[in-house]
């Protein structure tokens, strides 16, 4: 059914397109969906992705930048040479597809465990940590006068926000309290330079091929803030998928990440990166608690959501390894 609307849409903005085939939903919550499809074209099929909020679901969650901003950021990144899908079309009311955008489909793998284990990526893996450093440097240099309106968040505000989220769960966790104390004691204050921050740059949100990173996805948590936040988040143990001795997404070392970042002409502050890694670990732990709460109270009474509540303890052991390491 969505193919009819997509066919009418592509006919308007893709010269030569005669329709679409193979529309399939890849993921979707109540408010946001991702579809893949092929545009039928005399020169051969064009792989495409639709990201949209269906009609009637306009409101984005408070932390999200919104699909319009996401499209703008991806296009800016694409133009600046940061690996990103090309945005082909931003939805208009006459598309009758809700709000969102259509982008070029980039072939490759996003499933972290496959990227870390499959032979196909073996040659790329040792290069990824350094490459990610270079990509983040490019992302943090995107021209600020061209950015869409984004929320602005520094370290101090984030601590306050996470503390509020945690307290609202009424879920006394001594390890989380310890992490909150540590964060307050080590709050680095405002960054020397405020830049665009991707906000969810990690293994799982990158399309990777045998040649390395092909695209950075999921810009919905983009904001203005401390660029070191992205470097810390990509190192959070939850995104190493078992490869715990390779902090950068299970691919490589912090030194490689930092070298790639600095080779691209930007400066790293390792103490700030550590601060954001602790913050990120706590952030994921509190999000696990939020999922548990939605399982209990909300419409999503799924087993998967329930089990994510039981993953908070993973962040507790990781916080202890960061803040109270035992002798080796």
């Amino acid at each position, binding site marked *: 059914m969505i193919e009819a609307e997509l066919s009418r849409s592509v006919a308007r903005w893709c010269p030569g397109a005669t329709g679409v085939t193979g529309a399939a939903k890849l993921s979707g919550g109540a408010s946001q969906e991702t579809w893949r499809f092929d545009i039928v074209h005399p020169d051969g099929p064009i792989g495409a992705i639709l990201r949209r909020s269906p009609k009637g679901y306009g409101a984005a969650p408070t932390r999200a930048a919104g699909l319009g901003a996401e499209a703008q950021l991806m296009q800016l990144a694409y133009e600046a040479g940061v690996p990103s899908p090309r945005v082909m079309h931003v939805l208009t009311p006459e598309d009758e597809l809700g709000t969102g955008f259509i982008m070029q489909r980039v072939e490759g793998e996003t499933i972290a465990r496959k990227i870390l284990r499959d032979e196909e990526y073996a040659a790329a893996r040792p290069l990824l940590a350094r490459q990610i450093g270079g990509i983040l440097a490019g992302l943090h240099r995107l021209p600020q006068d061209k950015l869409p309106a984004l929320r602005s968040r520094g370290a101090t505000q984030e601590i306050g926000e996470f503390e509020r989220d945690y307290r609202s769960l009424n879920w*006394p*966790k*001594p*390890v*989380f*309290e*310890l992490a*909150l*104390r540590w964060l307050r004691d080590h709050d680095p204050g405002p960054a020397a330079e405020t830049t665009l921050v991707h906000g969810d740059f990690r293994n799982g949100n990158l399309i990777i091929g045998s040649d390395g990173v092909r695209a950075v996805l999921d810009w919905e948590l983009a904001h203005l803030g401390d660029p070191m936040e992205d470097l810390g988040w990509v190192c959070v*143990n939850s995104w*190493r998928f*078992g*490869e*715990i001795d390779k902090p950068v997404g299970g691919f490589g070392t912090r030194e490689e990440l930092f070298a790639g970042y600095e080779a691209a002409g930007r400066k790293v502050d390792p103490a700030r990166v550590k601060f954001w890694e602790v913050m990120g670990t706590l952030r994921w732990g509190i999000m696990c608690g939020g999922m548990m709460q939605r399982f209990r109270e909300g419409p999503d009474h799924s*087993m*998967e959501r*329930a*089990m994510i509540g*039981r*993953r908070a*303890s*993973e962040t*507790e*052991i*990781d916080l*202890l*390894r960061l*803040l*109270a390491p*035992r002798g*080796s």
Partner: protein
Amino acid sequence: MQDEPTPIELTKAVADFLRSDITPLISGHQAFKLRVAINILELVTRQLTREKESDAAEVERLRTLLGIDGSVTELNRALAERIAQGEVDLTTPGLAEHLWATTMDKLAVDQPNYASYKRELSRGG
């Protein structure tokens, strides 16, 4: 006293049935959901097996650390408050050891295959 089999034995029997008899019959998203269901039953089995002993040890440590008595929930709440107020921190004798022991007991139930847990376990629990 309730009759037997015990909840541990019953839960395990259901998990075994789902794994051996149902898993081969289904595929796709339903197979994924089934794996989650089996994981849940295995978690419940681990908790039923370990919880009584680990809670008792946790309460003992908390009583020593805080100098008060209470249920495991009450004592955890009290510890959380004292850390929040800065009355207890990592320089407090016994706090780091307590948090490590408690966290290891949780991982043993929640995610015994989590790499950080296996690493710490190899250090001697």
